[in-house]
């Protein structure tokens, strides 16, 4: 069963109150999402302070908290898989941000500064989330697009001005290796590496993330 089918199954079972089916779908989604979440946790840099990361002995805990938060936060009615994956990454980044904020507050307290109240407002980690929200909201109006497996990415790819970047990223997101992509499109492997990086950097800018 594909991730897209699992997302739809979970949402339908949850809406119908069918806990057994929803539980089975959720378990599979968690297994399949674990490494994505864990990688985001490890890659996390606190906005504006790239030296602030998740301590390695806390990665497993934060990963667990992020997966639990995904369960709490996601409303999956009408969601496509593209939205689910991007939402998982956004939730994981929120969790990392909260974790770092809490640690900073504790450090300040231990240092003897005035006790600060942690507001915990769930503002966007970056405009990444705001952009996702806009795109997801717009796409929910288009039922025929809701099931597109690439979902959000499909909305963004046409915005890339380079045909080569679009072609390379499309193949990348379909799971092709750089070698397969190079052979299929007639590029050198180094070209593919470069186009992947530039395409991803452009996607970041479109999502509103500022390059470091």
């Amino acid at each position, binding site marked *: 069963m594909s991730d897209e089918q699992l997302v739809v199954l979970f949402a339908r079972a949850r809406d119908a*109150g069918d*806990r057994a089916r*929803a*539980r089975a779908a959720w*378990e599979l989604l*968690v*297994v399949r*999402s*674990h*490494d*994505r*979440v864990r*990688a*985001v946790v*490890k*890659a*996390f*840099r606190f906005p504006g302070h*790239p030296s602030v990361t998740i301590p390695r002995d806390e990665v*497993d*805990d934060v*990963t*667990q908290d992020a*997966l*639990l938060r995904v*369960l*709490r936060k996601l409303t999956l009615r009408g969601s496509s898989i*593209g939205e689910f*994956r991007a939402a998982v*990454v*956004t939730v994981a980044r929120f969790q990392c941000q*909260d974790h770092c*904020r*809490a640690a900073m507050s*504790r450090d300040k307290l231990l240092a003897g500064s005035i006790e600060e109240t*942690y507001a*915990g407002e*769930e503002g966007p980690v970056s405009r990444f989330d705001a952009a996702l929200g806009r795109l997801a909201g717009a796409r929910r109006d288009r039922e025929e697009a809701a099931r597109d497996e*690439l979902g*959000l*990415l499909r909305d963004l790819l046409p915005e890339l001005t380079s045909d080569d970047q679009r072609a390379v990223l499309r193949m*990348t*997101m*379909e*799971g*092709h*290796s*750089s*070698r397969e992509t190079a052979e299929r499109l007639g590029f050198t492997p180094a070209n*593919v590496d470069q186009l*992947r*990086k530039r395409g*991803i*950097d452009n*996607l*970041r800018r479109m*999502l509103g*993330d500022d*390059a*470091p």
Partner: protein
Amino acid sequence: MTHPDQILSEFIDAWNAGRRPDVDEYLGRVPDEQQAELAEEITTFLAFAPTPAYDEAALGALRAEPAVAAATRALAGESSQWPALLPRLRERAGLSLTDVARRVAGALGLAGREEKTERYLADMERDALDPSGVSRRVLDALARVLGTDATDLGSAGDAGGWAARPAPALLRGDAEDLQVSDLEALADAITTDSPVAWDEVDELFRGGR
């Protein structure tokens, strides 16, 4: 030295092939000043990356991951996520339950009633308290002490228990109009502690949001 473009591409290939690449291994291959950029690129890729076709060995390893087990347990029973979440937040904050109770009681103006506050907090951790009864004031105070978000804490209490709690019955019309659900609600009321006997602590932890 491997070009950073190639390192990102190698991570992508390893991910797509289901080899479960370790982010740290790839970040360690670029100079420190380039790590933040590579980390962001990996994160952007992960927002769109396909889920690999993991083989059986990989799926077995994933199922054995502690985070996976905890997340699947959260939906397995009727419980809220508080038993999974609260003790860990408290441990991370370096606080005993007594410490938390003292701070929460202080924030709520419950001086002298720390012990009762602690009993309720223990009930929350053991999933022995109806989450819907815990007031927003308690959630706000507890969230501040534990360094988390109050709304998220409230959602964690609601998550997992999907059965809608029965709405209070409204008695109207004649006795013949009473429905079975109304009679059940009356029976519940008879067997439930009367709110009249509650003090402020009871009200905060059981009186609802």
